[in-house]
């Protein structure tokens, strides 16, 4: 993105100092630790999904209020990790010295891609958590630029580029029905990845959320849209570099789309004004799918199943062959803040 020329502003520094001070007083559960296993369930054995919303996120109707967005992010992260400060929450996700990738989803251009304002907020918190190298990435440079990111291929701090900059690992990664080359950004550059999809409908696979967004990490996503993406979406997420490095999903639901995706269709977009956060991509996808179904029902649209594009790959991702997470509502802890 490169919108931030300095890794840390004075204001940000003061904020981080405050956060650090706060964290020193935090409960024992928030002490610094190595990042937990990506898909580890919450302490009650359930997969926690946090939905954080603010109805005033868009005071003028169009542009996001960045400071409100940051507060929504903080609330979501603190709730997700049971922490009193956002910094402590982030320290449960990443470790200083790691290169952290932010996998955005920019296919829909500036209309409904991962918002740079959200990425800005995440970068700010990551830097405060001691992360110096951040890589914002997606399929193509042109996609990123169309979504208002600026390409920065070199240098320290925050870089931003598509898979066309580094290409793909030459070793074929396989699982089940898929065989793909995985983006070098993921295999060779990033130690950890935070997935930042958008809450939206998909004309072929039903929805495109945490799991589907990782199609942007492989060289041949066009091969995997048949049969509503089932089992391909689940299989792609089983490829070792993806399964091992994606630690968290923060779904940009500031504006959501219930029909006509993945392209931006303003007539089917509504202000959800929130973020959906989870470590379990299956639980997150299940939750996002239900939100979209609810909205479709509200406006009198057929369900995705009736439209012959029920995202069955979510169930596949949860099955015994994949175990990428849970789609069982009883094993899902939904927290709204």
């Amino acid at each position, binding site marked *: 993105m490169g919108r931030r020329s300095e890794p840390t502003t004075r204001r940000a520094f003061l904020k981080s100092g405050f956060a650090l001070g706060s964290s020193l007083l935090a409960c024992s559960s928030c002490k610094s630790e190595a990042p937990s296993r990506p898909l580890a369930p919450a302490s009650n054995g359930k997969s926690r999904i946090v939905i954080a919303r603010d109805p005033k996120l868009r005071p003028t109707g169009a542009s996001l209020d960045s400071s409100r967005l940051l507060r929504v992010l903080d609330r979501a992260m603190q709730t997700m990790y049971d922490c009193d400060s956002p910094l402590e929450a982030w320290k449960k996700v990443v470790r200083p010295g790691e290169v952290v990738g932010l996998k955005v989803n920019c*296919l829909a251009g500036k209309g409904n891609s991962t918002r740079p304002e959200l990425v800005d907020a995440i970068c700010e918190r990551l830097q405060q958590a001691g992360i110096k190298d951040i890589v914002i990435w997606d399929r193509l440079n042109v996609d990123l630029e169309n979504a208002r990111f600026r390409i920065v291929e070199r240098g320290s701090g925050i870089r931003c580029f598509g898979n066309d900059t580094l290409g793909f690992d*030459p070793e074929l990664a396989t699982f089940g029905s898929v065989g793909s080359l995985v983006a070098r950004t993921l295999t060779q550059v990033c130690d950890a990845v935070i997935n930042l999809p958008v809450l939206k409908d998909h004309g072929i696979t039903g929805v495109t959320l945490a799991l589907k967004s990782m199609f942007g990490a492989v*060289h*041949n996503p*066009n*091969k995997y849209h*048949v049969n509503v993406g089932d089992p391909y979406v689940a299989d792609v997420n089983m490829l070792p570099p993806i399964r091992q490095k994606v630690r968290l999903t923060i779904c940009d639901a500031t504006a959501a789309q219930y029909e*006509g995706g*993945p392209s931006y*269709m303003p007539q089917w977009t509504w202000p959800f004004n929130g973020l959906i956060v989870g470590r379990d991509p299956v639980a997150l996808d299940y939750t996002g799918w239900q939100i979209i179904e609810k909205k479709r029902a509200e406006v009198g649209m057929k369900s995705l199943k009736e439209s012959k594009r029920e995202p069955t790959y979510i169930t596949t991702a949860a099955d015994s062959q994949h175990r990428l997470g849970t789609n069982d509502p009883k094993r899902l802890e939904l927290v709204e803040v």
Partner: protein
Amino acid sequence: MSRKENSFNLEAALRRQVGTTRASPTQSIGDHLDRRAFLKVSALPCLAACAGAFVGARHAVPLLASPAAESDAQFITEAKFYEKLPYKKIKCKLCPRECVIDDQERGYCGVRENRDGTYYTLVYSRVVSAHVDPIEKKPFFHFLPGTQAFSIATAGCNVNCKMCQNWEISQIRPEQARSSHVPPQKLAALAQQYRCTSIAYTYSEPVVFYEYMVDCADAGHALGVKSAVVTGGYIHADPLKKLCHHVDAIKVDLKAYSEKFYKEVVNGELKPVLNALVMLRKQGMWTEIVYLVVPTLNDSDEEFRGLARWVRSELGLDVPVHFSRFHPEYLLKNLPPTPLEALERAKAFADAEGLHYVYIGNVPGHPAENTYCPKCHKVVVERVGYTVGAMQVRNGKCRYCQQPIAGVWHL
């Protein structure tokens, strides 16, 4: 990988290709030219060098040429055979898959893209691989035997065979490989310059670069160069029928004689391929069939018998059928190469149905590489590997008994 690194890989790849004499499934121009000739060609103005594949150096394939493309725009032209739908969607009508594609998305082939409701091919003149090959390597055994084919490919394919030998170009998107910009007239001129009697569209799947193939065929004919297509035959009737007006021979890779195999291994369908074969015969197109025998997956007696009977009843006895040996590749590395027994069993079923020209491929030195006169049973075309020996076909007839030998034997 930076562009600089890419260039370096290209040069290394070129050096390797020039120096090698090994026979590989995709030999390069360098394999067939001596060093002097190769350098001479490389130095020709306005000829572009194809660079190392972005996805890895193993398939860096090398052509003739100018610096890497400055812009993708030169490779993009509106596609044929599609239908516009509401909300900027389109439906592709080129192959039976009929992808419905949203704005900014691509079809299954990965080389056709919907841009604001208009469908474009991204691979027009975008050559990712080019070699001078014996026509026998395609294989065509009854189409101008003993001649050279200027063989090209772009990225992309409309199926995804688990045994693909060329997946590093067929299963990628065009921007994932360095390509050369080779417009049809230039390609035809190159083929002529290399004394090739034909241009072969091969390696990946020419259906996905249909527009380019048609224009190249026309440009070739203007210079007396014929066109031969190597395809999986997964194409709609209308574009196939039109294609027959432009090219001279088509070889169809019939992957199996079961829908199950097509569904599970090819990610396609058998029926449209069979329909395409029937149409080719009706159009009078010279057609040959290759059947890659994959151990345990498409090598049952039932399939061999069914195939042979279908060819006999629907296409006739004169369509050559090549049963080829499989080598473990791509997503089927767990299987062994095809046992000779399976290939000979397949041939026996075809012989039993009375097919005239049944071959065993990828087994150099096997007597079933030769063409035998269906009447007097003498060898009329002798082959070892891709090399043609004695030819006993005169004016399309057996030299010994005057039996017509089906095929295209002269320019």
